[in-house]
């Protein structure tokens, strides 16, 4: 995000005449490459292993390159949205940016959902799109669309390249912008004639990009102040988010140390799961709309809230004016615009999670060396309060003899897979929330879900990206029967590349989350949320060349899950579950954290204002 103006400026200073003179000189001295060759050389320089893409007229020069080189492997998806989510899965599980290559017009517009998804969830992507030749731009040419115009609000930055000699530099800048600061997607639109033209390659070393993280003194003193507040508090809580995951695995280690050192309780957003082990005693589970009773009550009653890398999203805060009313709030975020956007904070630190957490630990250890022991007593009353909330067992559910409960299916999946390093992706709906509630992640980067945009159809392509980044690991997409149909075509991709992903469908025949809202907020008017015709998922799997398994009875669940895990091929596991189960706990729209519904016996009236909210 921070990059030297100098770069852009020296660059802009050259007028076209000067530029061409310069390049004419160079032409004689250096090897000239086509625009398409330059793109691939730059991608290689950034260590790209995989491109997720789909060909078309406006990118054919670039597709020529794919078969001419060996270092970068192209993964042919079945729909460009799939390419986008696969790149997201790859990025989120590996920490490296995901690369997309698609054609102009429909190829570009099909990636928009994935780009928006990545923008909302801060996932680094570099998307390269073909464009109609320069002289046709603006003429409504075949497969022309204003790609940079359409993607401007859903990328961190984008470029339309009009000079072959700017390609290398732009690709280097693109990688820098996508991966630094708050990560996100970027897009480079390259007209076909520019892909053919010859120009000069410049390595990223020849380009001045300022990557240095600057330390501002005011933020350093703020860290000291934060530690002071931490030491003084008696009802503290850490509220951590995706910023910790994005800061790299070291940040999660540092967070664990800080949590241990302080003895404080910690809760996490949907995107932050895995930073703290899900079974750690100090971990209160996820917070927010479907968070645990103890996490939400602790947020409501705490006297100090320490937000590390989370953004006070509306799924988290519930009613903002009743959000954690009596606490002092510290907000640590790499994105200055997140601070004071939704919730006013008492102290803010703009910085990378790892840097700030490490600094906090150092200060705690040096300035307050007996903190760990002195602190125990101070927060003991707080902990016993938390334990009474915990005793409510807000995630409990009633088992059934004949029917598989969706919660039970996720719990079983967790029990049977927890011994191996497992990666979970999800679609969007109830199954996603149950996955977040019942699958306990031990490590970061093991959990890939569409949180900000809530994109049905995310999980299957994301699993493909994850499996490519981690070929030997178990990758499971916990899915709903409605969501999975939104990008089911990608099963064909998984089969083609022999990616043994497991699609674990909690099949309730309903758009369960929609049905739940209709039940609770729309007088049980179940309008269009039931799918009258569903495919036979076992046969569907077979048609694609994958394996299908169906479980309908709780007794067979263990065996069938184990069977699934043994198959070294893509599998669809059609787990037929109870149809009308609701996902609890739930903070109804417009309610504060301490007014949760815990279960079916606990449902209360939702106000008219509450119903308007999403």
């Amino acid at each position, binding site marked *: 995000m921070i990059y030297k103006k100098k770069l852009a400026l020296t660059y802009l200073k050259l007028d076209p005449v000067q530029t061409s003179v310069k390049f004419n000189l160079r032409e004689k001295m250096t090897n000239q490459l086509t625009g398409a060759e330059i793109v691939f050389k730059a991608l290689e320089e950034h260590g790209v292993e995989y491109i997720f893409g789909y060909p078309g007229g406006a990118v054919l020069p670039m597709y020529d390159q794919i078969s001419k080189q060996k270092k970068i492997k192209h993964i042919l998806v079945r729909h460009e949205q799939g390419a986008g989510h696969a790149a997201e899965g790859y990025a989120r599980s590996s920490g490296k940016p995901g690369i997309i290559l698609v054609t102009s017009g429909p190829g570009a517009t099909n990636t928009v959902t994935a780009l928006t998804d990545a923008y909302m969830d801060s996932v680094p992507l570099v998307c390269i799109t073909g464009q109609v030749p320069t002289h046709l731009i603006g003429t409504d040419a075949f497969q022309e669309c204003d790609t940079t115009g359409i993607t401007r609000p859903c990328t961190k930055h984008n470029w339309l390249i009009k000079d072959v000699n700017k390609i290398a530099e732009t690709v280097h800048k693109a990688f820098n912008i996508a991966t630094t600061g708050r990560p996100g997607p970027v897009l480079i639109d390259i007209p076909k004639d520019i892909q053919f033209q010859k120009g000069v390659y410049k390595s990223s070393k020849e380009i001045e990009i300022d990557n240095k993280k600057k330390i501002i003194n005011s933020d350093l003193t703020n860290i000291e102040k934060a530690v002071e507040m931490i030491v003084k508090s008696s009802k503290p809580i850490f509220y951590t988010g995706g910023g910790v995951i994005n800061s790299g695995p070291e940040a999660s280690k540092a967070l664990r140390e800080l949590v241990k050192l302080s003895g404080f309780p910690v809760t996490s957003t949907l995107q932050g799961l895995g930073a703290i082990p899900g079974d750690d005693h100090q971990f209160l589970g996820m917070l927010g709309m479907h968070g645990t009773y103890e996490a939400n009550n602790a947020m409501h009653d705490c006297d100090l809230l320490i937000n590390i890398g989370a953004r006070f999203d509306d799924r988290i805060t519930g009613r903002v*004016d009743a959000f954690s009313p009596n606490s002092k709030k510290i907000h640590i975020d790499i994105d200055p615009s997140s601070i004071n956007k939704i919730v006013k904070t008492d102290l803010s630190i703009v910085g990378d999670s790892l840097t700030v957490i490490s600094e906090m630990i150092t200060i705690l250890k040096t300035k307050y060396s007996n903190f760990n022991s002195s602190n125990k007593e101070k927060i003991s009353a707080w902990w016993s309060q938390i334990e009474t909330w915990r005793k409510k067992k807000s995630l409990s559910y009633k088992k059934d003899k004949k029917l598989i409960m969706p919660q039970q299916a996720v719990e079983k999946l967790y029990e049977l897979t927890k011994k191996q390093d497992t990666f979970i992706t999800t679609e969007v709906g109830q199954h996603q929330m149950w996955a977040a509630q019942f699958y306990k992640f031990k490590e970061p980067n093991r959990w890939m879900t569409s949180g900000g945009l809530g994109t049905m159809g995310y999980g299957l392509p994301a699993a493909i990206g994850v499996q490519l980044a981690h070929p030997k690991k178990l990758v499971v997409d916990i899915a709903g029967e409605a969501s999975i149909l939104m990008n089911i075509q990608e099963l064909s991709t998984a089969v083609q590349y022999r990616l043994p992903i497991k699609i674990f469908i909690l099949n309730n025949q309903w758009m369960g989350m929609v049905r739940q809202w209709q039940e609770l907020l729309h007088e049980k008017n179940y309008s269009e949320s039931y799918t009258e015709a569903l495919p036979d998922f076992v046969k569907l799997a077979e048609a694609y060349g994958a394996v299908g398994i169906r479980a309908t009875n709780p007794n067979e669940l263990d065996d069938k899950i184990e069977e699934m895990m043994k198959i070294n091929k893509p599998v669809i596991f059609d787990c037929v579950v109870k149809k009308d189960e609701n996902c609890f706990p739930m903070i109804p729209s417009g309610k504060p954290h301490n007014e949760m519904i815990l279960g079916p016996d606990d449902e209360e009236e939702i106000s008219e204002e509450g119903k308007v909210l999403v």
Partner: protein
Amino acid sequence: MPKSAYEIDQQSESVERYIVVAWVDNEAGVLARIAGLFSGRGYNIESLAVAQVDDERNISRITIATNGTKQVVDQINAQLLKLIPVHKVATYPIDDTSIFRELALIKFVAESDTLKKAEQLCIDLNSIILDKTPKSFIAQYLGTRREVDSFIKKIKPLGAISISRSGALAMKKGPETVKDNKGKVL
């Protein structure tokens, strides 16, 4: 507190007019980025003025008049700084620590009697006549937004048939200039 789906006590903070100034690379699409940011996030643009101010470094200065609470304006500031071609941003509350100017051009077409009256009034109100024919003239007026408003109100009945106004320009009084405030991350 804006931009949350939930009801927020907005009465506690008053809505004021502000000037937002951004220094940007003069490149294709930069204005669309800024206009898109304002419309996408529901901020208001009252007026807008853009021109290159540094030919050597290719920098344009964009001046936007907007309104909102202090918190909204701080958000605008932070969101603008996230845009890649934006170098620095300043926000001025509209008060007497800064200078504000707007320009208006007004064309009058009328019978010679009315035209004479109009011309005299324009001169009395400190505007400059830029073009004159027997049937028409064009006056230029410079002032704060309020002054331009009141000028137009006074001369409008006298045959003003075409009015063109610029967006506001602003500058802090005194020797200070705006420092680079971009991209400091710990």
